[in-house]
């Protein structure tokens, strides 16, 4: 469920982000609590809370005293914007490295990209 390369709280934050991004958690809806996340993933509640706090700091969630945490207005756009900025480093860099290793030129790569079928 978790990989070891990054702290678990970070991965908890990512999973919630994923749900905000794809609309599973719409803006204005209540996010899972740290205890719910802890029980679901069988992790320490403090770890889950740390993950949620990352999202509060990033402006994706906000706290409502005594009720819980909610997805902020504009959270989806915020995440989309951030993901676009990270896109090159996350996806293109490894592709370019592997292409170089296999002797695929930039032109061939561009052609492959244009010929690639759109996924359904």
């Amino acid at each position, binding site marked *: 469920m978790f990989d070891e*390369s990054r702290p678990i*709280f970070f991965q908890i934050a990512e999973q919630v982000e994923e749900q905000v991004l794809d609309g599973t958690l719409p803006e204005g809806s209540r996010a899972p609590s740290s205890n719910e996340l*802890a*029980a679901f*993933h*069988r992790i*320490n509640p403090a770890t889950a809370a740390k993950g949620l706090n990352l999202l509060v700091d990033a402006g994706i969630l906000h706290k409502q005293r005594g009720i819980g945490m909610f997805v902020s207005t504009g959270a989806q756009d915020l995440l989309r914007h951030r993901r676009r900025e990270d896109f090159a480093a996350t996806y293109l*860099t490894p592709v370019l*490295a592997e292409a170089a290793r296999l002797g695929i030129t930039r032109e061939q790569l561009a052609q492959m990209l244009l010929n690639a079928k759109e996924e359904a």
Partner: protein
Amino acid sequence: MTTTPALELRSLSKRYRKRGNVVAALDDVSTTLQEGRIYGLLGRNGAGKSTLMSLATAQAFPTSGEALVFGHTAYEHRPTLATLCFVKESQKYPDDFEVRHALHCASLAFRHWDADFAARLVTELRLPTDRRIKKLSRGQLSAVGIVIGLASRAELTFFDEPYLGLDAVARQVFYDRLLEDFAEHPRTIVLSSHLIDEVADVLEHVLLLEDGRLVLDAPADEVRGGVTTLHGPTRAVLDAAGSHEVLARKDLGPVTQLTVKARYSGAELAAAEAQSIGVEPATLQQTIVFLTRAGERADA
């Protein structure tokens, strides 16, 4: 905002004589355990885990130093003893005791005892309450300890290898109920364990003992992934390792597998991967094993 720690160990030592030599079961251990957290007490057999728990719960006397439970030593101090629950690895019960007798005693001894919760755990762990404890299997004996340890809701609870003999299903029941109940009734829990990978995600903080000494005292998040294995062409691997401390090395022709004490992320990770180096962060268990072995080498 300082609250009294749940447990404070001050230069705690336990020495005894063995064939004329003085052996330290626990050697000058100082640390502080905060309230409302789950701690992992890790270490190899004989590292001093059980000794530490016995001293903290006033079941044995230290040779020097002291253990303060909520600011007070527990020896013959009823209010402090009332905050403690120690589930021993091999708890002894009176010969004619049935499971229900042990649970009844626990219900009298622990002021926060939750009988409904205990009954639910008994059912889930399939514990025969009218069987004599002497006749129980190792797993069932562990289950008795788990019921008592969880349903007692003591402010400071120690579990010493709580899952011995338990099957995978019963162990999951334990972890699930522990987290669920901890969320509703936060308290300080110390789990001693050598099944590290299994408890890793449940722990907030890790204490590692080695030959009676406390060699690691850190948040689990910091420990996890703090050791990384690099795999690839020897020169590239050595470059990527840079000046990080090397914990293990294996060579196979032109390929090297190097385990270093470092966390790879961001630019360092990207650079290593660009050189076709496999970067594998260690699990908490692997990290502990590597750190323990590093200690052994340093001693040798």
